[in-house]
């Protein structure tokens, strides 16, 4: 493939790029830019973070699972390009020295990239901004002190790039959903790459040779969000951070779950379409979308069809998607917000859910008028708890009703044991999350994240 982008302010034009070359390998092996580190090669540690600028602004991304074609038309800054040409340090670099924010220093370049990106965006929610950067040495405290101090400094002018002119469309990187539809219909064996937060690992960990590969990232129309009177329509290529912003006013609990979905870097890449299309039983969006009764819009060539999202997931590894068909958008019906999404994992941030429960329960006159409850991590697919719903609907909204639904849980779910949690724990927690929803409704404090020291 042919691509053009800016690297630390200089134009790079590459031809014959192997499409699944990661930015990290290219930086370190081809360019000798070894400041950017490999700590895991799977998006989890942030040592490989770089700052990428596109039309939406600057964001941190993990270069270990970023394929070069995803940079086409963008600008990248690595740690080497965050200080000025004359050696003047970026304010976050200065502050990190002053506050002893590095010990072994191996995580540091990645932190610098994330911090510089947060700094450029005026973001000060450091626990979120840095959730995707692991440090084994410092305990993070000095890094946060550094970030706080640097926030008062102006954004240095040298880190803003003039984006290169938009490159011409290339055959495997269509620039509209129409073009994508034509290409994919002709080439249904191709692997679609959206944010590459799954596909990247197929290359770096499963060591798969993928070809052909179609990149979706230049289909601008797939990143659109349209809010109508009845629905929120979200393009398949909308990333998790954008989705979080979009949903905050409508479904704050969903947005709070997205705050904890992976990390800033992964959320900047991961798309809603990818999170649905991968069919994972532990993806975080599907249960929430099922509970909201969302509609999935698929497209094959010029043919479009829509289905309730829960019907998309047929069995483990099997979805209702035809060869050459792709996810175009998702529609969430507007509704009074009764949604709570509970993500249970070993670690609060940047962790795959052991259990994800989404509850959408409507209470009228003390009675449960409607209930849509869906779970991830409890079955081979994201799954609705229909027996539980049936046990609730029409009953009084009280502890007795919840207790009476006890048996229904086992009819809905027989979860597995794995390294994230045991089957028993999963089932018991699922039950307890309904209690949490109820108590929260009554005004009780139920989240340890909201407790202050």
């Amino acid at each position, binding site marked *: 493939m042919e691509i053009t982008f800016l690297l630390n302010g200089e134009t790079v034009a590459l031809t014959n790029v192997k499409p699944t070359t990661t930015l990290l*390998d290219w930086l*370190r*092996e081809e360019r000798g830019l070894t*400041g950017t*580190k490999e*700590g*895991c090669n*799977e998006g*989890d*540690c942030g040592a490989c973070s770089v700052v990428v600028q596109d039309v939406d602004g600057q964001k941190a991304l993990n270069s270990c699972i970023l394929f070069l074609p995803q940079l086409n038309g963008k600008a990248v800054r*690595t*740690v*080497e390009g965050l200080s000025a040409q004359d050696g003047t340090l970026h304010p976050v*670099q200065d502050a*990190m*020295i002053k506050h*002893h*924010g*590095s*010990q*072994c*220093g*191996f995580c*540091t370049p990645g932190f610098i990239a994330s911090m510089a990106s947060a700094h450029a965006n005026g973001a000060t929610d450091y626990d979120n901004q840095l*959730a995707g950067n*692991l*440090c*084994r*040495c*410092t*305990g*993070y*405290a*000095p890094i*946060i002190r550094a970030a706080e101090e640097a926030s008062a400094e102006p954004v240095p002018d040298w880190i803003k790039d003039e984006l290169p002119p938009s490159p011409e469309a290339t055959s495997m990187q269509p620039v509209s959903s129409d073009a994508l539809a034509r290409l994919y219909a002709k080439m249904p064996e191709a692997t679609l790459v959206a944010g590459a937060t799954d596909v990247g690992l197929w290359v770096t*960990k499963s*060591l798969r040779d993928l070809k052909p590969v179609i990149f979706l990232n230049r289909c601008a129309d797939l990143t659109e969000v349209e809010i109508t009177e009845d629905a929120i329509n979200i393009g398949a290529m909308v990333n998790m951070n954008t989705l979080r912003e979009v949903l905050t006013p409508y479904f704050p609990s969903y947005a709070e779950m997205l705050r904890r979905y992976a990390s800033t870097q992964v959320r900047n890449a991961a798309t809603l379409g990818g999170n649905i299309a991968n069919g994972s039983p532990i993806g975080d969006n599907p249960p929430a979308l099922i509970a909201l009764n969302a509609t999935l819009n698929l497209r094959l060539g010029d043919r479009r069809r829509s289905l309730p999202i829960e019907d998309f997931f047929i069995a483990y590894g099997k979805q209702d998607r035809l060869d050459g068909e792709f996810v175009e958008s998702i529609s969430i019906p507007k509704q009074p917000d009764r949604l709570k999404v509970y993500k*249970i994992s*070993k*670690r*609060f*941030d*940047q*962790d*795959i859910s052991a259990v994800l429960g989404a509850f959408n329960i409507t209470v009228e006159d003390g009675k449960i008028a409607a209930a849509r409850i869906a779970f991830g991590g409890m079955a081979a697919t994201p799954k609705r708890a229909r027996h539980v719903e049936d046990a609730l609907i029409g009953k009084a909204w009280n502890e007795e009703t919840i207790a009476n639904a006890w048996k229904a849980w086992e009819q809905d779910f027989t979860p597995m044991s*794995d*390294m994230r949690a045991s089957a028993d724990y999963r089932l*018991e*927690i699922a039950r*307890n*999350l309904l*209690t*949490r929803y109820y*108590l929260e409704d009554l005004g*009780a404090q*139920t989240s*340890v994240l909201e*407790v*202050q*020291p």
Partner: protein
Amino acid sequence: MSVSAPLPHDSAHLHVTGQARYVDDIPTPKGTLHLAFGLSTIARGTIEDMDLTAVRAATGVRLVLTASDLPFENDVSPSIHDEPLLSEGEVHYLGQPLFIVIADSHMNARKAARLAQVTYVEKTPILTIDEAMAAGSHFEDGPRIWARGTADDAIQNAPHQLNGSIDMGGQEHFYLEGQAALAQPQDNGDMLVQSSTQHPTEIQHKVAHALGMPMHAVRVETRRMGGGFGGKESQGNALAVACSVAALITGQTCKMRYDRDDDMIITGKRHDFRIDYTVGYDASGRVQGITFLQLARCGWAQDLSLPVADRAMLHSDNAYLLEHIRIESHRLKTNTQSATAYRGFGGPQGMLGIERVMDHVAHALQMDPLEVRRANFYAEADGGPSAPQSPAAQASPPEGILVRKNITPYGQPVTDFVLHDLVDQLCESSDYAARREAIATWNAANPVLKKGIALTPVKFGISFTLTHLNQAGALVHVYQDGSIQLNHGGTEMGQGLNQKVAQVAASRFGVAMSAVKITATDTGKVPNTSATAASSGSDLNGMAVKNACDLIRARMADFIGSHPDYACAPETITFKGGLVYAGGQELTFADAAKLCYENRISLSATGFYKTPSLEWDRIKGHGRPFYYFAYGAAVTEVVIDTLTGENRILRCDILHDAGSSLNPALDIGQVEGGYVQGAGWLTTEELVWDDKGALRTHAPSTYKIPACSDRPDIFNVALYKNTNAEDTIYRSKAVGEPPFMLGISALMALSDAVASCGAAYPNLDAPATAERVYHAVQSVQND
């Protein structure tokens, strides 16, 4: 003076600009080859057939080596030659290296390594502590037992008894930089190895054996590691040896770095332990007698497991006087990764055992656990107020009390016990008592969420328990322009050792830090070094550097004093602020160096240091294994959700004793980082093996070290005003490992929170994941 100044890490500027070089960043010659291991896919058995045709035929592969291709020794063990680099037919754990792929790229080597067709005759693996106990699978002949007094009688005769058991998981080091080595062949087949290792001399030794050459033919250099934590004390041997052998055979530079998943699957971790205890105590919570059964899962090879298990025994008293005690320690051999050194080196496990006992006893007596801890403290130093004595203790013969008063179970007197005062200060600064009350009130008002608080102390013994390791060397050059180059046997893994040692050198010569240059650790400059481990880095190397500097300084003073322009007694000459003051005159240090050079005074010296006063019999469990103790204490407050077990740390206050700190900024960094790592060990960091022996948590996606938001919301860390009673370098204390154990307060705070859910004792095992906390809540509620 540079010593005690809070200077930043010497490489801080390089770190933040990405210029700091780690092994994988070193530019390599064209044609450099890359290595990967092919790994076993079963935990125990023998290889029936290993078909490597597809591996050899894979893209980019230059050569594949198996055990029979190795020219000399096939061993990478740091202890008893029981760890072949490549399997010779026996498979001991899932992930054991079977062959080496040598290819033109890292990726091609990794890809090829997966193409082997191996058939095995499988045997049932021994995976768990229970299975190993049942099979009698031990290192050493059997258990090691150390005892003092008459534990069983004392327990029997005590007013109260209880027993219990705690399981504590292992821990992955998760150094951010994975293991890596680079070998470059030199003239005559000599080898230059750059290795991410805490122990260059060990690498040199193992490589020399593998190449069939004397140690002088191998030079090992380590500039810095991206974290070590004990995980690079012996675990780097395999990569360095593999690269050196490959480099010898191919004549080409060879590099190997583990992919993260491979790293976690191949290398050893912290030992998981089960500790059973039986204790007799009185109404004040004072322990009358205690027995511990320590079961350590050591994995397939001995590695450093014996000294690790010893240190667990040595810390089963922590801060408490235990007069009648018996400790039985089993070092169990299992078909899992060979457990290895990890910050604290068994100390944390042993200490957690006794801290659990304190917590359990307090619960049984319905007392604040802190009161029980205080009741058991060693007496204060210098005849200050001693620990409260129970009536039972007073009834025993007075000379018995005197003799045993401040002596550890292994016979070492505790002469500078500062925890009474340190804990008082911490209680005050953290407002412990009021917060404990406030938490009880809060818990009464909150049905779902519960808070907990705990204060735990640390007393950690400093020195290698293998006495001969307590030595270090240094090489110091003063150049004629007054600049100083410095080398020592310690390695830099983030702890700031180089900076501390440079501060020592700058202080000895009275020059600015900019005059001192630190260079990479190099077996060609300082030989026969010990691992940078046991927190001993600055104690040993700082002293060796001081001795070297003082030799040169004395030569300079002797000469200048004898010089007619200055004519004065050498002892009256001082080195300060970049100047040398002699005979009422002054000259710059640079001029002094030049003068000495021109007058043929040697300006280069080696320094040597060995820790005094040590003597230790590990079989009897008696003597003075430690030069001194480092102290600290932490108060942690947590909140748990009783519906899910989710939990988090709200606040932590720490007061830690670093003696008179060489560099308070770096020391506080060690304390903060150590605490978070220790808390991680006991909360979210869970290693899970399946019943085939496959490690299921072999990447950061499944193994969860603390992330940014897991640090305490409020995190107050201070150094205790103290100076080392022993004559250490500027009276400082080691600070690498001790703060790790402050993390124990997090587990105890969780236990406190769970305890508020019912009457029963929580019996909370570690790591206290949400699931374990949930089950503990359930058992407390249902009891």
